[in-house]
């Protein structure tokens, strides 16, 4: 068997190289988030947001932008025979799951590097809450990446892939979004960040990440079967 670390690095490097070369996911995700912020800004007719409204606008935008990347996560494997190549190689198939989660995590982080500063410029009076927001972003991204990878691998064989991913994914990430907005809300409060129940929400996010990472690891091998 090929060491899992070697296979993981190979698949992740392949995905990132392909994305950098073709730019099929990241620019679309970033453009979507910027456009959505513009729509919210003029739709709400507010130049400043705080608390739950700010958290809702941020996470709704990031979630739907993330779905664009999740939709395309396994397209190359499906259309170019990558699934077969990986199934023929002497590797633990769960490595593919781990590498795809890592790739999606990097895409989401890159998206947030663009989207969060723009969100702050559009809607926030100050950037005091952005430091601790990084922890919320990381934990939410991990949960979204684990769940998104799982759903994307199931949907990729369907012709209705673009429809199936949001239909199945969105209900599954409701708890994640509740926890993410719950943790973000006090950070973006009017008058500066507070940490009311912040730790509790982070623990909920961590638990969600753990559960869906383990579920993905456990069932991914079966999903690759014919």
């Amino acid at each position, binding site marked *: *068997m*090929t*060491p899992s670390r*070697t*296979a993981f*690095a*190979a*698949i992740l490097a*392949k995905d990132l*190289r*392909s994305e950098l*070369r*073709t730019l099929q996911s990241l620019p679309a995700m970033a453009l979507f988030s910027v456009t959505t912020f513009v729509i919210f800004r003029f739709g709400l007719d507010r130049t400043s947001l705080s608390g739950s409204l700010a958290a809702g606008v941020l996470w709704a935008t990031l979630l739907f932008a993330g779905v664009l990347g999740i939709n395309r996560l396994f397209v*190359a494997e499906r259309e*170019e*025979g*990558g699934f*077969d*190549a*990986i*199934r*023929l*190689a*002497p*590797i633990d198939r769960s490595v593919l799951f781990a590498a795809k989660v890592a790739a999606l995590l990097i895409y989401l982080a890159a998206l947030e590097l663009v989207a969060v500063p723009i969100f702050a410029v559009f809607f926030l009076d100050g950037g005091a809450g952005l430091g601790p927001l990084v922890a919320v972003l990381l934990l939410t991204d991990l949960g979204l990446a684990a769940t998104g990878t799982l759903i994307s691998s199931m949907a990729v064989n369907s012709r209705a892939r673009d429809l199936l991913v949001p239909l199945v994914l969105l209900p599954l990430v409701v708890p994640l979004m509740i926890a993410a907005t719950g943790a973000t809300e006090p950070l973006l409060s009017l008058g500066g960040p507070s940490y009311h129940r912040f730790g509790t929400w982070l623990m909920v996010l961590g638990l969600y990440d753990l559960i869906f990472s383990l579920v993905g690891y456990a069932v991914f091998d079966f999903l690759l*079967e*014919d």
Partner: protein
Amino acid sequence: MRSSPEKAEPAIVVAALRRDYGDRPALDGVAFELAAGESLVVLGPNGAGKTTLLRILATLLRPSGGEARVLGCSLPSEAWKLRGKIGYLGHEPLLYRDLSGRENLHFQARLHGIEREAAEARIEELLRTIGMDRRADERVAELSAGMRQRLSICRCVLHQPELLLLDEPDSNLDVEGRDLARELIGPGTGRTRVVVTHDPERHLPEADQVLRLGIGERAVVS
């Protein structure tokens, strides 16, 4: 006193093999044995189940019934033991279109756990042999179907598999390409081979056995 050598186990043993797609049987009652180093040529019309048979032997499809034993491993229960021992050349080249040919082969080499320097040497040797060394840095999407097939042949034998499962290996290849491909996947390599073909004139002379599949008919081995 030396013990008498035991008869070697065949490389492939298939008995009453069946595969259904829903209610439709794609393959039914296939049986043959193939010794190590021998070549089996599989013939039959479109839809007879040739590709299905090959994908079952490659562990990419589960049989619906019957027995299949490949390189001493029962399918599908011991399929995991066969990973890395099979070279599979299918209808799809199994190459990523946005990577170059060389990048694809390096990616495959890493998946198969081949050390970097050994992989480098092996890839260059294969690319030279198949006549692709000058085009290997171009993206696969920009190559012709024949060139992709040449790269796919390199991918198929990169990890020195014991068993070659070749689904119409000559497709899209020109005359020169076919001759070069023989060096890597022909009977002279000494590997056990199962070759699906629509070109019996070319492949029958090198066959140790021939399996004829028909639609709704019993498979015949000769």
